[in-house]
């Protein structure tokens, strides 16, 4: 298994764990009815730190790929970005049509939709990477 394939599996497992933690955190925040500037600051700091760590980790790992692996990764990322956009659009309109344009939805639906979209995007990206490798191995045989 190449480094990129291992990374694809790692990100797939990692995003499942992250979404699970995020969902639990969201449920706790909803239960506590967390609001206010203090919670926004806590969230912002957590978001920034997590995002920076993930970005630095991805950049460092990306630089260790060879050129073919970079192309595979970029192709998978573009597909995943498209999947995220398509899902976000689809789910938004689904909610719209399910509850009706003049109805109200709980606010926690928004971050829940976003978390689900992130999960789908990462799932698609990891799957796209693994499928591309599987195609090549099938061609070799």
């Amino acid at each position, binding site marked *: 298994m190449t480094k990129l394939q291992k990374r694809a599996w790692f990100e797939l497992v990692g995003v499942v764990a992250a979404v699970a933690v995020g969902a639990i955190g969201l449920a706790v925040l909803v239960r506590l009815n967390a609001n206010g500037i203090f919670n926004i600051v806590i969230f912002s700091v957590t978001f920034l730190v997590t995002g920076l760590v993930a970005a630095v980790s991805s950049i460092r790992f990306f630089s260790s790929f*060879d050129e073919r692996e970079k192309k595979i990764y970029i192709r998978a990322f573009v597909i995943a970005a498209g999947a995220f956009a398509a899902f976000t659009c689809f789910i938004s309109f689904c909610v719209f049509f399910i509850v009706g344009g003049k109805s109200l939805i709980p606010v926690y639906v928004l971050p829940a939709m976003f978390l689900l979209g992130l999960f789908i995007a990462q799932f698609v990206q990891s799957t796209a990477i693994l499928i591309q490798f599987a195609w090549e191995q099938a061609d070799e045989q």
Partner: protein
Amino acid sequence: MSSDRLSNQVRRLRFEHGQMTQQQLADKVGVTRQTIIAIEAGKYAPSLPLAFRIAHAFNGTIEDVFQYDNEHEESGD
């Protein structure tokens, strides 16, 4: 209408240079073995820097390793 085809002699040159393995060539040019496999099978076209590094590994020119067939269908020229 034109048909472009890039072919290579990587496999033949590997055997001519002391039965070099795919892994050895990969280590020499700084890519994975899977990339060398994909190049030899014609599934992947290397970048220009990589093509030059491969040619250099065989002490040859880029034309010794890679061939570009550009077939044009004449259409009333």
